[in-house]
């Protein structure tokens, strides 16, 4: 990585640095030796926030694991014990539970930021794809974590999601039994989910490392979406962005801790305070809020859905179509660098794309709303149209608009834009 090597006067630092150049590595990664575009806005805070939330999740999770019992007879009670008897157990658990929601809020904003400013475009395609892997790993981790308290939503959420794999032709049933370790979600399932829930955050950590590695190769994108042309376009990461990230962290912690202390069950489902009962399905199963849009895509595919019966029913049944569409709705994000054919990165100079971007966000929110509703009219039909629009955005609107729209002219350089703004003031 770039940046000039720093010299140390302190003999201990010097001694260590000579043998393990860790201080210059830190300096060139997040220190004064890492040049960063000088025009980053607050939308660029969410990457570091995501990293901080990951760290909070790992620390609170390790502590919770010291008190939790992964057995169908004790899991629910051990969580209640954490809440009532373990010193500060309530705090640590609520930090972890709400931390999951915060992680998704921060990462979703981070992703929309990337979409708006074209951060996925050449040469950051791999950086973007690694990011999609991270969100997939986060989803798997969050899903398995939600099973651990062994409440009604835990159990039935696990049943519904593992049953998705039964849609795979021929081997589906075998896969589901392999996932369960039995004939239904039961103790073997709980045990392995606990094991994997502990493992996956470290996989995410490794992916984040690779994500940052790719990021530091070509540096951060910026609100203008133009390349860094020289030192006049950059400022050192430290102290400028360390301080900006810290300031954002302050606001974020207030938001996060508001929920922890004043509305700890705001994102949760009351049904999960009822212990799992394999013989009674709750009347209305809903996943956690961050899965709702994808859940709506899954449910959109029924035999009565015209798009399914016209175009898909001859190759697969409605259940498989729903599962395929749900996974596709995440994976399609990874193709964005190629679906978008415009050389201009930032939508500041692409008003038409900007408009469709806002409609796309509205569609995602609509899908989220539909995902929380029961499978009745008018929600089913609305969900089907919202699903079609979701895919049309990626497969029709973005490829066409990006290639046909008339774009504005981005400024010559970051430095030029910034100094011009100062002169105007």
């Amino acid at each position: 990585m770039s940046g000039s090597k720093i010299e140390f006067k302190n003999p201990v630092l010097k001694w260590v640095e000579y043998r393990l150049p860790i201080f210059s590595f830190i300096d060139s990664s997040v220190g004064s030796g890492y040049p960063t575009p000088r025009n980053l806005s607050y939308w660029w805070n969410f990457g570091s926030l995501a990293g901080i939330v990951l760290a909070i999740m790992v620390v609170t999770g390790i502590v919770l694991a010291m008190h939790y019992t992964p057995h169908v007879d004790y899991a629910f009670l051990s969580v209640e014990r954490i809440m009532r008897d373990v010193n500060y157990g309530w705090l640590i658990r609520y930090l972890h539970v709400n931390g999951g929601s915060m992680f998704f809020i921060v990462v979703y904003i981070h992703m929309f930021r990337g979409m708006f400013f074209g951060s996925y475009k050449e040469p950051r395609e791999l950086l973007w794809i690694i990011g999609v892997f991270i969100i997939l790993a986060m989803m798997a981790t969050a899903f398995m974590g939600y099973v651990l308290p062994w409440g009604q939503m835990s159990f039935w959420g696990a049943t519904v999601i593992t049953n998705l794999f039964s849609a795979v032709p021929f081997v589906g049933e075998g896969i589901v039994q392999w996932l369960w370790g039995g004939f239904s979600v039961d103790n073997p399932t709980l045990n392995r989910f606990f094991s994997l829930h502990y493992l996956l955050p470290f996989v995410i950590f490794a992916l984040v490392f690779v994500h940052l590695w790719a990021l530091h190769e070509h540096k951060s994108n910026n609100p203008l979406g133009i390349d860094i042309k020289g030192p006049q376009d950059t400022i050192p990461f430290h102290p400028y962005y360390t301080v900006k990230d810290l300031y954002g962290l302050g606001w974020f912690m207030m938001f996060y801790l508001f929920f922890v202390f004043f509305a700890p069950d705001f994102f949760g489902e009351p049904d999960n305070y009822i212990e799992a009962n394999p013989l009674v399905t709750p009347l209305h199963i809903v996943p956690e809020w961050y899965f709702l849009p994808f859940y709506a895509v899954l449910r959109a595919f029924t035999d009565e859905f015209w798009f399914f019966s016209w175009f898909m029913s001859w190759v697969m049944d409605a259940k498989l179509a729903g599962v395929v569409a749900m996974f596709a709705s995440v994976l399609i994000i990874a193709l964005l660098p190629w679906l978008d054919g415009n050389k201009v990165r930032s939508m500041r100079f692409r008003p038409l794309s900007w408009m469709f971007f806002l409609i796309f966000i509205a569609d995602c929110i609509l899908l989220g709303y539909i995902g929380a509703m029961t499978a009745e009219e008018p929600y089913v039909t609305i969900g089907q149209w919202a699903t079609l629009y979701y895919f049309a955005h990626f497969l029709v609107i973005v490829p066409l608009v990006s290639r046909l729209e008339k774009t504005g002219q981005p400024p010559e350089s970051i430095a030029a834009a910034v100094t011009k703004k100062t002169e105007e003031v």
Partner: protein
Amino acid sequence: MTDTASTASGKPEEGESRRDFLLLATSTVGAVGATLAVWPFVDQMNPAADTMALSSTEVDLSPIEEGQSITAVWRGKPVFLRRRTAAEIEQATKDDSASMPDPQTDAARVQKPEWLIMVGICTHLGCIPLGQKASDPKGEFGGWFCPCHGSHYDTSGRIRKGPAPKNLLVPPYTFVGDETIRIG
């Protein structure tokens, strides 16, 4: 050592191909071995011997009145046992020719028309359909209704509307007496 010597003594091609062969052979054996070693780690997740050894379940049907249902547990799954009314049986056979996602006659789903015995798990994503209690919603076809994603089953447990692809599964069972069955 002899290999090196022979290579040096003017037969480079022979020596090279021999090394290539050895490299290829060892790599292949190594790769196959590594692949085989993965299997125990995959298979350990499949149902264990004690899970597989789950016994069959016997159920006494005599307390069930006509038009009543009970739920038994077999292999950790709920099994619906319904003593159908004459009207339900008639409706089920009448609908044999209706169009449905997973066509099946009512006769193929029961041993005695009076007794409908099925695994009570929605074939869509594994929820338990409602319809066992008199007060439950029974869907548009008077059988069972899955609240999770809106699948409607008829009085023969066949899928008629909604996302589920298959009829409710009929488990293997035998009548051990007039009013007693063994599931499994």
